[in-house]
């Protein structure tokens, strides 16, 4: 586009293991119902932070608060050293990318066009030169190369989910927020997506991911935050947080945590009656 006129610069990278985003004492009411109740949580660069908890625990709302979509009734929400609402839309788009639970597209754009949309915040900046590289890398990472000319709406659910993730990765932000990125995926692609998340964390990004599969969280997250009824019940490394007592109480269902025979992440299973 207009290459002569360029606005903005790339935001400075935040050093590893520093706080990139944080909520402090945040409460949210939606239609009079308290959804988050004095929640505090820090997101650090270089880590994969998994948000887990039963349905209606407030995971997606917490993610919405971090993006600035949901306004907190009280408390402080920070991103990259400022209150989240102080960033303009474009500035925020250069700093954090978001994958929503619902991926929809109203018009029949091709996969290549959808992934390229992820580069929108960098239009008219010097980083525009990286567009092709970022798009190609994102499509390789999510295993959707070769889909370029196909229409997004003609893809299967799992394929769409990966294309949507490719769009998020192409945005190349240091903070990445993923709301249930694995829900529609097969076993192979679930592992692939979380491996991508870990690669990004290893490269110094911060990844917050909402997960329902506790085994995925235990295997791939550096820290997990367990939410229940709008509160953070516990935060920390999965092997410390995922205890049978805590999980059984949070999910109101007996949960077993079994040590993996080969020393990998523990196996978490709901206790079931013998058949």
């Amino acid at each position, binding site marked *: *586009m207009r290459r002569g006129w360029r606005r903005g610069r790339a935001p400075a990278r935040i050093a590893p293991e520093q706080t990139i985003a944080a909520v402090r004492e945040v409460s949210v009411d939606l239609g009079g119902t308290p959804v988050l109740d004095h929640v505090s949580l820090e997101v650090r660069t270089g880590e994969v932070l998994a948000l887990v908890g039963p349905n209606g625990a407030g995971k997606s709302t917490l993610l919405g608060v971090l*993006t600035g*979509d949901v306004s907190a009734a009280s408390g402080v929400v920070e991103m990259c050293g400022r209150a989240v609402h102080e960033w303009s*839309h*474009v*500035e*925020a*788009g*250069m700093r*954090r*990318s*978001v994958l*929503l*639970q*619902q*991926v*929809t*597209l*109203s*018009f*029949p*754009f*091709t996969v*290549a*066009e*959808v992934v390229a*949309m*992820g580069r*929108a*915040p960098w*239009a008219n900046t010097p980083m525009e030169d990286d567009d*092709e*590289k970022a798009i*190609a*890398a994102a499509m*390789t990472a999510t*295993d959707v*190369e*070769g*889909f*370029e*000319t*196909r229409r997004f*709406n*003609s*893809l*299967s*659910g799992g*394929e*769409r*989910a990966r294309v*949507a993730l490719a769009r998020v990765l192409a*945005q190349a932000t240091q903070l990445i927020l993923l709301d*249930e*990125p*694995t*829900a*529609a995926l*097969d076993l*192979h692609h679930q592992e692939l997506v979380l491996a991508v998340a870990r690669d990004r964390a290893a490269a110094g990004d911060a990844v917050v991911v909402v997960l329902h599969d506790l085994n995925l969280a235990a295997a791939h997250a550096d820290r997990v935050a367990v939410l229940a009824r709008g509160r953070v019940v516990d935060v920390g490394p999965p092997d410390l947080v995922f205890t049978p007592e805590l999980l059984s109480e949070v999910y109101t269902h007996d949960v077993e945590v079994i040590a993996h025979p080969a020393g990998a992440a523990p196996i978490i299973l709901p206790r079931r009656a013998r058949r």
Partner: protein
Amino acid sequence: MNVTSSPRTGELTSDDTRAAAPAATRPVPPPPSSRRTRGAFLLMGLGVALVAVTVVAAGRGQMAIPPAEVAGSIAHRLDSGLEWVLGRVGVTVDLPLDIGPLPAHVQGENTLWLVRFPRVVLAMLVGAALATAGALMQGTFGNPLAEPAIVGVSPGAAVGASLVFVTGTSALGEWTVPVAAFSTGLIATLLVYFLSRSGGRTEVVTLILTGVAVTAVAFAIVAFATFVATPEAREQIVFWQLGSLNGARWVAVAAVVPFVVVGLVAAGWLARPLDLLSLGDRAARHLGVHVERVRIVAIVAVALLVGAGVAFAGVIGFVGLVVPHLVRMVIGPGHRMLLPASALGGAVLLVTADLVARTAMTHADLPIGMLTALVGGPFFFWLLRRTRSRAGGWG
């Protein structure tokens, strides 16, 4: 992540082969240029079609003028016009543009330049305005069935026009109806927008439903005006709502041009954000789009485009709905191509429709709104069926 399900048409065989392939970064694949190439061809094709249909339309009527003479007349005017402009800046040249035959009939030149061309150019402008406005509406609401009427421009304009006819006022001379129609159209649109806004945000569904409510009230006022009007005024109200380019003059063209230009410039600014808006409001915001700003700019642009068109031509439906869809089928949904191609397509369509309106029956000027609705209605139905069979309903 829940992905809205739809019948899977693509094959899923690639997974297995891909998993075995090395995961190394491949060379950057060439961008899918087919849509862009097709877009360029479509723009060129529509440009040529517009010139052709203009020359033909200007030649047809009670006094037939062959296309060669029409083209010759344009060439001569262009030649003398350019020479005059160059003369003003001190360059005296004899440009070789005065080619082709001039109209053979004594009144030919006058008919062309005082009657036909103003009407053809106004049709062009109104068509471009309506089609662009339709593309903007569909993009802004992420709804392929949106059209300018949903934000109340035309119903609002009908209120102004019918009140002028009923009261018989002529405060602004011949400009009374256009000014009244334009103002009430704009007021109705802003009313829809601000009534549907809450907490700094507008929800699409709320906005569409507010549009329905405002439109209902507008039609009630028009109905009341029709009821109390004298037979003569009643006739004016009815015919105004059917739309016509009858009696178009250069002053009307000059009045419409600035609004259309402003609207088209705004459309150009909106092209990129509208692409992103197809991901939904939230995802677009995450990509740096100021969704509310885009929406208000789009709505004002639509009000200006449609308001200006409706003010001089009355209500002309379905152009805004049909043209963007046809264009999208050919070159895809990218707004950077869709908007200019829709403008050209709308111009071609309305010049053609107006040609039919005034030549289909001798000594009669058919209402152009009737013609566009006659073609647009069945098309709308077909679109509905097609979308339904593809996406499995609207739920």
